[in-house]
């Protein structure tokens, strides 16, 4: 489903990603694990189309969505045309819009009642329907995380990228959300790249762990649940 090949990215003199290769099968949840600040988020940003690599290729569903310094012209498909959702570490919710407006933001090409139904379905699944009129600033950390997830899932993406989604939450809430997240991944048959520095979190959620080190995937192994 996701194929990353020969990815390289430097910031000035600092080579953050060096020939990174990763294959993620449809419906697979891959935990991208490694210490903070070594390029995991950069990898997600490149897959999402928010950042250009120096070289390398990203394919989604067999279609090239990013290609730089490869054969033929460079390719950079718009992030909204990649069929993916992205939950960022800081949620990046729209602070001036209600929970409902956040969740419906990515729903285009549907009539108003279909938009509302889709949003309500997702919000009910994540148990935030009663928060729909509130602003993000009025929510707890856990509630904000649920809204960020609902906003990403509302357009029904096939792929979900998650960048340290549980880092800022307390231990009890993390444990609780981990169980919920895994159930949602299975229920929606999502292909997921889940970035975390927490081995336990990755093992709890992922089918496979890909270890990120020295700018590339240094090893990968399957997790038995």
């Amino acid at each position, binding site marked *: 489903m996701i194929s990353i090949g020969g990815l390289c990215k430097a910031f000035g003199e600092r080579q953050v990603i060096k020939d990174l290769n990763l294959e993620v099968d449809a419906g697979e949840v891959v935990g991208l694990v490694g210490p903070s600040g070594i390029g995991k988020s950069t990898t997600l940003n490149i897959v999402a189309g928010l950042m250009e690599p120096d070289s390398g290729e990203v394919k989604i569903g067999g279609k090239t969505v990013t290609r730089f310094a490869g054969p033929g012209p460079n390719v950079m498909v*718009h992030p909204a045309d990649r069929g*993916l959702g992205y939950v960022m570490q800081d949620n990046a919710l729209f602070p001036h819009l209600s929970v409902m407006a956040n969740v419906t933001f990515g729903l285009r090409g549907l009539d108003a009642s279909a938009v509302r139904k889709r949003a309500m379905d997702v919000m009910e699944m994540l148990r935030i329907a009663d928060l729909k009129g509130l602003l993000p600033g009025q929510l707890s950390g856990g509630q904000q995380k649920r809204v960020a997830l609902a906003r990403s899932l509302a357009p029904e993406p096939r792929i979900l990228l998650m960048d340290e989604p549980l880092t800022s939450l307390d231990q009890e809430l993390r444990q609780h959300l981990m169980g919920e997240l895994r159930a949602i991944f299975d229920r929606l048959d999502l292909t997921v790249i889940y970035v975390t520095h927490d081995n336990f979190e990755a093992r709890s959620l992922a089918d496979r762990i890909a270890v990120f080190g020295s700018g590339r995937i240094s090893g990968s192994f399957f997790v038995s649940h």
Partner: protein
Amino acid sequence: MNRTQTLLLGLASVLFLFFIAVPVAAVFLYTTPSQLASAITSDAVITPLKLSFLTATVSATLVVIVATPLSYALARRRFRGRLFLDTLVDIPMVLPPSVAGLALLLAFAPRGLVGRYLLQQGIVLPGSLIAVIMAEAFVASPFYFRSSKTAFESVNQRILDSARILTKSDARVFLRVTLPLASRGILAGFIMCWARALGEFGATLLFAGNLPGVTQTMPLAIYIAMASNLVAADALSVILIVISFVVLAAFKFLGGWQKPA
């Protein structure tokens, strides 16, 4: 800090406040309240007051419409010549008003760089209401530009990235996310631009002239009234000071030019 140092610092502060407050107080104390009330309702005050409000509002609005796209581009895009453009738009802020007026004349007067072509169409700008608006917009535009650019720069890139994942429409991202999140800075910029336009004197005098009822704004009327009707000049000054105070307070309330943390 010892007592002598504290005393010296306190003395310096008192001197500074004295220097600012005394001239302001003098304007308020020159006329009695009844003189002020009757002056404020006279034609000598009302006519330039109306003209100033009209031209300042129109010029600040036009600046917002015309300057916002470039302010956004300079805030969020990196391109060749960016620093040059960023400096160019600040020039009116540091030019002496007489130079600004002369520049406008050389550009838009009937024999000017652009004015000669306008003349062929029968358009003569100097001495017109449009010239007042142009002079005010020229001088006041950097005040809006700085504030709106800072506001656009302060919008969290991650939030914009989130929006770009959800929609392909740049216009939708701008109108639904960027613009609302920058709105306080945009409003603060509009207020400062409006206030600067309201107080504009030199460029307006040179480019638009001083025609009562046509181009004579409040600052020009104050200058003229000082020779013959000091009470009217004082009444206009009181109004300008009150407006300036309210505007500055509003600007500070809205966050001014400070980037949010």
